[in-house]
């Protein structure tokens, strides 16, 4: 038996891969299949799953509604499509803002004196030591009507004897955007930094030698060579922003509902795991489609491995 295994290379390979394979099957494939099965089911009046094969949940997600004006048995209700669209645009906007903020910072760190770089990177990472939820609550303290920002603004207005009404910043789409950008900024800084740091100094010198000034060097050399970092960062930011519900829950209140919130509420409040499962799968498919087209255009961003 052992002797035969020693000679059989492909069996050896399977055996060596088996721990990972078991892991993947147990923790990814089986749960996914279960979710799929549940999503085809129906909710019983007391919140259990009745297993069947019904596409009702998906039809409902795409706007079919039975809760209509008097006289109609069915109508179009874009509620869930709006939620999906809102999640998609928010993820897009957050990613763009994260890139705009992370790139200059990563550039600054990469061009800093080698001795200081680690200190700066350390500073980028420190917030990650605090729990995600606590960091979002911190933003609540900053943004609310009696929050730090309004206090400071009020104090400044007081100095100039100006009237001041506290700004309503919390529970707005803007607050959710700020929270998302803040939460995921480090995941963009690190891969961009990695790709910038890899650019050999002689390339900047070569560009200068060939007649490029600072701006041209940046546009023609630095930016293209750091694109793998931007791509990797985009994947690391876009996907989690699509699914997160904590930020919108805490900073958006009931005003900003995203797919993540929808799913969470179906499982915990509405007690409809079948509809929740369908929404989860749609979220996954949507993310996959966007990521697929994105990576096909820009590549996978080798920095993702480094980061």
């Amino acid at each position, binding site marked *: 038996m052992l002797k035969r295994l020693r000679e059989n290379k492909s069996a050896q390979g399977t055996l060596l891969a088996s721990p990972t394979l078991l892991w993947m099957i147990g923790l990814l494939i089986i749960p996914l299949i279960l979710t799929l099965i549940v999503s085809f089911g129906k909710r019983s009046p007391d919140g259990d799953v009745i297993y069947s094969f019904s596409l009702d949940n998906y039809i409902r997600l795409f706007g079919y509604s039975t809760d209509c004006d008097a006289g109609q048995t069915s109508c179009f209700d874009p509620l869930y499509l709006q939620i999906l669209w809102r999640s998609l645009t928010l993820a897009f906007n957050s990613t763009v803002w994260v890139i705009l903020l992370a790139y200059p910072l990563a550039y600054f760190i990469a061009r800093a004196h080698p001795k200081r770089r680690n200190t700066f990177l350390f500073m980028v990472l420190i917030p990650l030591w605090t729990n995600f939820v606590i960091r979002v609550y911190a933003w609540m303290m900053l943004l609310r009507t009696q929050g730090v920002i309004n206090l400071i603004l009020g104090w400044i207005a007081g100095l100039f004897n100006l009237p001041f009404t506290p700004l309503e910043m919390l529970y707005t789409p803007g607050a959710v955007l700020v929270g998302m950008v803040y939460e995921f900024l480090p995941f963009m800084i690190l891969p961009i930094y990695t790709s910038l740091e890899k650019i050999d100094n002689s390339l900047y010198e070569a560009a200068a*030698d060939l007649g490029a000034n600072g701006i041209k060097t940046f546009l023609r050399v630095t930016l293209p060579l750091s694109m793998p970092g931007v791509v990797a960062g985009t994947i690391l930011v876009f996907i989690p922003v699509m699914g997160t519900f904590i930020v919108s829950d805490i900073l958006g209140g009931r005003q900003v509902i995203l797919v993540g919130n929808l799913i969470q509420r179906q499982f915990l409040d509405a007690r409809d795991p079948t509809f929740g499962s369908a929404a989860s799968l749609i979220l996954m498919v949507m993310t996959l489609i966007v990521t697929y087209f994105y990576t096909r255009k820009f590549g996978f961003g080798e920095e993702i491995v480094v980061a």
Partner: protein
Amino acid sequence: MTAEFAVELRDVVKKFITPEGNSLNAVDHVTMQIKNGEFFSMLGSSGCGKTTSLRMIAGFEWPTEGEVYIEGKAMGHLPPFQRKVNTVFQSYALFQHLTVFQNIAFGLEMEGADKSEIEKRVKHVLEMVQLTGMERRKPKQLSGGQQQRVAVARALVKVPDVLLLDEPLGALDLKLRKEMQLELKALQQQLGITFVYVTHDQEEAMTMSDRIAVMSKGKVQQMGHPVEIYERPANKFVADFIGESNFLDGKIKSLSKEEAVVFIPAWNTEITGLPVSPGLVNGEEVTVSIRPEKVLISDQTLNQNSFKGKVTNTVYIGTDTHVYTDVMGKRVKVLEQNRISRLDPGSFYTIGQDVNLVMMFENVLVLKKE
């Protein structure tokens, strides 16, 4: 090209602060004049200041003191892109995200040349470095030698007054390096552009250069034609760094216009008929330098200029055999060319064998003691 010199360094000093916080003169009062159309090499081991000097000509570094002139114009703090010089980097520094064509076109685009002009000039320079047909490849798809050619082409397409080359062949294997040396030299002669070349490889410098500046500790030790530097080294450092030498302590007994007579205490003998180099003083302690290939070795008694020695070791290296001998307590290395096959072990001297060493005294050098 009206200026007398393509590049001139006048009393240039470059100070660096070491990590320990000390100030160090990487380039220490260097003055050199590089003529138009010359192939000029700066030769020295790492840390001798050759690369720093080159980088000051390119504009990547600015002198702490002194001034760099290009075509007679003081460069001051002009950035690299305002100097009519281009650099071939040791690492090639090719843009990996651009094709060969785009790499070479980069400098022309920065000048604002129009498309057809760029196309024409890139094509021409690609022909020159024999890379026609490689336009659309990325640097990673090329061999080391081809990448090197792209780097040269990218610099040459700008038609610089001076081409600066920083150990451009360092990454290539020996055979290819020797080939590229001859190619670069031919290219330089064909174009008539001034080349300033930095290397630590003396053979490379000898092969290509019209003139060499031997550098050490930030200073120019000697500047001159390769033959002059090898046959008439200015000091012990140059004699030791370029080629090999046997060194003996001596003292000048008498000095005339034609010859020097030096007493060698270790051998208790006087050597006459030595060439006189400027700056020597009668009675001065000197170092006598003898090139290993300029000593004849024989097991027979020859003329009066011969010294008796004992063989201590022989080393066969293919083209030559190095014979180490002991002459009255001093080790003298002799280089014998292997003109005949050495397959017969009897063709080598045996260890402990008595031999006679003959030196042509006009080939023995008298150097100032350091």
